[in-house]
């Protein structure tokens, strides 16, 4: 489904937050390194999707009313077999039933599990004065506690994207530190430039978070994405 269609459908249904499979589809169309995903509405569909996508997979609850998926037991990682997927599917629905009774459940997202890497965040928002703004930071405490992030107003050039990578205080971690390998900065800069383009081309997107993105020696992978849309653009 095209970006336009996905957003129109969400707005028609009165949703401001895209479902994760929708967000991933938007990103895929813009060439972001996103893992393969599928929405399953039954246990059999989940198993079938996992086989098609390839193991290991992650299962995540898809529900507009659940903001923190893992807090309600809505995420299971590292599933290696069909049996594990089937069991995890049931477990997630049971957990949600227990911890978020009455929550509207769209289905369960089956996602190819991306290997662990250095976790980074790339996001975007709209500022009342400067309009679209892109943010880069390292994941976890670096963003949440230390607020160690850098910003640029769109359009962001590749060169500026590299500046953003170098501007955060913890940027040395990207160059490799204490036995950890250097990260593929070009892949990260590429993601930043693509976010800038997406925000400038799709005015309905109000906020976007890719958190985390796994950064590797070669390449990167978006492990989780959130997109907020607004029809008044």
């Amino acid at each position, binding site marked *: 489904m095209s970006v336009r269609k996905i957003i129109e459908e969400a707005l028609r249904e009165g949703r*401001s*937050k895209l479902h994760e499979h929708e967000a991933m589809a938007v990103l895929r169309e813009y060439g972001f390194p996103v893992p393969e995903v599928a929405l399953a509405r039954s246990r059999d569909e989940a198993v079938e999707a996992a086989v098609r996508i390839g193991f290991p997979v992650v299962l995540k609850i898809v529900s507009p009313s659940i903001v923190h998926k893992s807090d309600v037991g809505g995420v299971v990682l590292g599933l290696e077999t069909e049996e594990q997927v089937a069991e995890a599917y049931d477990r997630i629905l049971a957990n949600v039933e227990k911890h978020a009774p009455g929550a509207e459940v769209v289905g369960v997202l089956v996602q190819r599990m991306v290997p662990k890497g250095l976790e980074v*965040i790339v*996001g*975007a*928002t709209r*500022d*009342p*004065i*400067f*309009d679209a*703004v892109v*943010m880069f*930071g390292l994941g976890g405490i670096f*963003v*949440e506690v230390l*607020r160690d*992030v*850098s*910003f*640029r*107003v769109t359009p962001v050039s590749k060169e*500026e994207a590299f*500046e953003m990578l170098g501007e955060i205080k913890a940027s040395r971690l990207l160059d490799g530190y204490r036995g950890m390998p250097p990260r593929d900065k070009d892949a990260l800069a590429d993601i930043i430039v693509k976010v800038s383009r997406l925000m400038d081309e799709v005015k309905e997107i109000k*906020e*976007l*978070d890719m*958190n985390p993105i796994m950064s590797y020696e070669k390449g990167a992978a978006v492990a989780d994405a*959130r997109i*907020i849309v607004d029809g008044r653009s």
Partner: protein
Amino acid sequence: MEAQSTSSIEVFFKPRSIAVVGASPTPGRLGYVVVQRLLNRYKKGKVYPVNPKYGEVLGLKCYRSVEEIPGPVDLAVVLVPAPLVPGVVESCVRKGVRGIIIISGGFAETGPEGAKLEEKIRETIRGTGTRVIGPNCIGVLDLHGGMDTFFLPEEKMMRPPPGDIAIISQSGALLSAMLDWAAHMGIGVSKAVSYGNKIDVDEVDMLEYLANDPETRVIVIYVEGLRPGRGKAFIEAVRRIVREKPVIVLKGGRTERGAVAAASHTAALAGSYEVFRAALRQAGAIEAVDVVDVFDLAKALTMQPPARGDRVAVITNAGGPGVMATDALESLGLRVPLLSEELQARLRERFPPFYSVKNPVDVTGGGSNEDYRHAIEVVARSDEVDALLVVALIHPPGFSAELADIIAEATKGTGKPVVAMSFGGGETSVLRGKLEKSGIPVYETVERAARALWALYRYGKVLGVAR
């Protein structure tokens, strides 16, 4: 588009005729001070007092309205109470006035009623080509041409000497204080503009105009907030202008945070100041931290060339300030590299063994003026550094105010920026005066001198001449 907006701003500085609406014959009143200042300072245009209550102001015939004035009126300076202003603006537009400076307050800053008045004015000027500065501002000051709508008498706010720093400010009060202080410090200013509520002319218009102003070499801007949606135009304007001249920005309202109803990390972290800073960096503006810093940086940028790299040599005759200078430079992201063996050997040729030649180069309190000459000549002409910070404490017997000439001579023709730190009274003030006269900016602390070099390096980066 650009050419048109430039010419439409020109009328504020070079009007051939000015109507002062709300003129008064009573000394001390705003309407008196403005007429008086224009008469005394501005020689290139006729001044027409306007006020239906009076027949004469300062010996000039006072008109009942702008439209009653015989002959064309280029500019109107409006001082009447806010509710009367929309009517005056209508009258000005009918008369064909090209620029209106609304000094009066009582508009959007006071609430919705005032905002309605602004909307009315905006409506009146739409499509007419008449430009408006203000309301709620103190207008324009041109130290070269003499235009002066500042209603502050000279004994309260001294006017700086004509110079090459232009200042535009959202706050009139801050601008007055800055100008008074600049005058006190003998720092020259080209033009100053307070644009208040900016219902029409805003910082982007002013930046575009000053970019083409031959009397302005550095533009300083104090801004609290831009108009919604105007951000990208601001970045574009600054980006264009910094290729011609540096833009120094002082931002008010740094701790204010954007809307908090945010569903994402990014939105929660993107406070308005964080975003503004990023925008300044992208645009190539240089951010000042306070009003003193503004003039420190402006001084450096008008007097010295941009740095072509981040390597700084510190030349000193005192250990402590040398160490502190190194700290300050490094913490700003500049480097104080160890000089090569070869360069150290060349310094040693004329220095006793107890001088330090590593960088900082320390000729010690036992040294002399001539030691500085040797140190600077060797270091500045090497390809190991891009800029010099000279600590000149002339209190020991081997040094004197003549050191200023030596520093100027020794650095001449190297193309590398040099700034000095000197602190004290007596002969030190002579040295400081001489240094600045030769175009070398002097600061009272090494930290301020380091900031000045940081700005010269930043500007070198912006121009693409620095590595």
